[in-house]
């Protein structure tokens, strides 16, 4: 298929040079929007979602992968899933995750003694979630960090982070050594066909 070139005339017609007809047209357009939006119920064409208004639940509008307030997931026994590997606090560009490790005295060996995230410093990049090897930290709470009057209120500790968490069903430690076999077959539609 050949590429066609559409020639656009850049010549200014008399109508363009008078300005006024085009200006009037523009004014009519904006005025139409103004009156429609001002005087129709629910503000006409305005699509803004009024978060925070009574009756508007942000969770209805936030997309699935929205990054909200952090939460720490639980094991089956309700203890924290985190193994204090420090991946998240290392990758965090804002350096706002502070972890102190302690001995767990079971297979998992380590657990955080304290796990603190300063939400005021957090840039909500989500790298901590990406970095976590055992699905311990998530940002899918669909909760916007609420404004706080005191700095301390925005610094969340382990207990608070776990309050929002739930049991995670991910296999601890990933899929295991045979993950290539376990992985679902790639969809042929999206596979790269060299022929």
């Amino acid at each position, binding site marked *: 298929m050949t590429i066609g070139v559409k020639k656009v005339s850049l010549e200014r017609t008399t109508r363009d040079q008078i300005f006024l007809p085009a*200006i009037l047209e523009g004014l009519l357009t904006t005025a139409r929007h*103004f009156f429609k939006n001002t005087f129709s119920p629910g503000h*006409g064409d305005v699509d803004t979602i009024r978060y925070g208004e009574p009756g508007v639940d942000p969770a209805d509008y936030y997309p699935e992968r929205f990054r909200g307030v952090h939460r720490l997931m639980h094991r089956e026994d309700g203890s924290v899933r985190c193994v204090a590997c420090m991946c998240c606090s290392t990758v965090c560009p804002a350096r706002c995750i502070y972890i102190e490790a302690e001995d767990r005295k079971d297979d998992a060996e380590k657990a955080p003694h304290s796990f603190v995230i300063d939400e005021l410093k957090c840039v909500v990049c989500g790298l901590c979630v990406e970095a976590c090897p055992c699905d311990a930290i998530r940002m899918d709470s669909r909760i916007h960090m609420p404004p706080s009057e005191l700095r301390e209120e925005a610094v969340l500790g382990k207990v608070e982070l776990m309050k929002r968490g739930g049991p995670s069903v991910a296999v601890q430690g990933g899929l295991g050594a045979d993950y290539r076999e376990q992985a679902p077959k790639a969809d042929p539609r999206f596979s790269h066909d060299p022929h």
Partner: protein
Amino acid sequence: MTHVAAILSRFVATLATRSRAVAGLCLAMVLGVLTTACDEPPTSTQAPVLVKTEPGTLIFHPSTGPVEVTLVNVSDQPVRVDRPRIDETTPDWVAFTVGEDASATQIPAKGSITFHVGVEAGYFLGPGDARPAVVRGGEEPEPTAANEFREGKSRLVFSVDGVPHTGMPIRFEDPSWVTQYMLPALVKILLLVLGFIMPLASLLTWMERKQSAMMQDRVGPNRANIRIGGLNLRLWGIVHFIADGVKMLFKEDFIPKRAHRALYNLAPVFAVAPALLVFAIIPFGDGICYDQLFQPLSGADVAQCADGRGGTPLQVAQIDVGLLFYFAIASLATYGTALAGWSSYNKWAILGSLRASAQMISYEVAIGLTIVGALLVYGTLEPHALVKAQETTYWGIVLQPIAFVLFFTAGMAETKRAPFDIPEADSEIIGYFIEYSGMRFGLFYLSEFIETIFMAAMLATLFLGGWGLPFGMLTAGGFSSALAATLFLTAVGLGLTVMGVLAWRTSKAGELFGAVVALVGVLHLFGAVYAAFTGWGTAIPHVLVVVLGMVIWGGKVFLLCGVQLLVRWTLPRFRYDQLMSLGWKGLLPLSIANLVITAILVYLLMPGLTPAS
């Protein structure tokens, strides 16, 4: 149909339940209208008045020349009037003279005759020993100090068909400078600045954001609210301007180290002061008569009051060179921008101020030349007289349509707002006030809005008949006819009702407001019906006419401000060279062409202006 019924039933339900007060108010107002409507017309026993004098009371000041008096035959048959004379039984009758042009004559039905009454002011001067030779009855005048005018009164009498008429009272007074000029001027300035300009300018800061939001399918500012008791008043975010004002006042007032402190501090004042000063020439009403507020007056009465005798014009300064005064003061505003840019010691600021000066000076030329057209047509530079002239002929927008467009464009350029915001140019240099912060910046910002209001007021005065209605529907005594009253009330009533219902439907918060507006609209419709059936509206109390005029004027100004905002948020910005070429190659030649064509047409078409006459 069911939709309409549903709306109506919801509307009634709102009136009944949500706002019982509104319902009560409604009932009271309707009852009020009905009781007025059912009032018996006063049955007078005395003979009906056949002839009216205009003005009702004649007031002289020491410097007043002969004043024209009109006798109007208000009856349906011709009447005979003998020669009007000064009543010799009144105290100061010798001081007044009836002109040669008064004579015994027949006045046709609905016709009128005019003649002149003069005064010899010297008679009232001095220690008060000059007494008329003949004083029968009436009280003795107070003696006064030397070289001061004392007050005097007399009466003009004549008889109609042989029956003596009550006549017309004549007063001579010399009010002091304070009561004559200073006090009224102060009151008017306060009324205009604190009661209209400043509130509207603050409102415009919110309106601009809200209107632009609505035009662009956004919500706009709506967070600020006031809490009264448990009631949370958000009012569509109107209170944002209070929040803004508080913020401006409490922000740090930063002065750059190398700025010229004195001029830096002075510049905002230079920006605001001229913007407020020019309002002095804007007439926001005809004239107000102090002592006849509650009776219907004639045009001659109000004209006499607007002349300063027994009243005051509704205009801060009635100067003959009004429009020249505007040019003189408005060009001072350039100093504000130029000084702000220069004294800030900032290259962006000085670039902005250079652009501002260039722009304002270029566009002033176009403004001046467009106004000359109106000057030629109406033959006056005095805004009050200009509006009066439009009342009797046609509005400026009909006689000078091109000038209207040119003036609108150049006026928007004068306000330095988009699409002419080259001096500010957010994306390039941030403008001449880049270094200003806090309330000093606020003053620059506010002055732009004040200029917007002024341009709207100027457009209303020059092209849209000031405080008047089209076709001279609003006269000094009320509406020109019952039909005019009906039309006006119907239009206003329909507009308000539709707006109220729409506002009421938009949201829960708008229900009360919308219901009140719709209610006022419905009352206007009642008024229209009343006027249509009773012929009410041609003679309404003076104070009502004054208020009506002011409301009409304010409405025009408000709407024109809205149009300016609409333009500001619709058109993209001009580049600097485009701005200059539009000013010098577009507006200037067009305004000269408009001037020449107007001059030729005026020469050819207007009677009484050709040299032959």
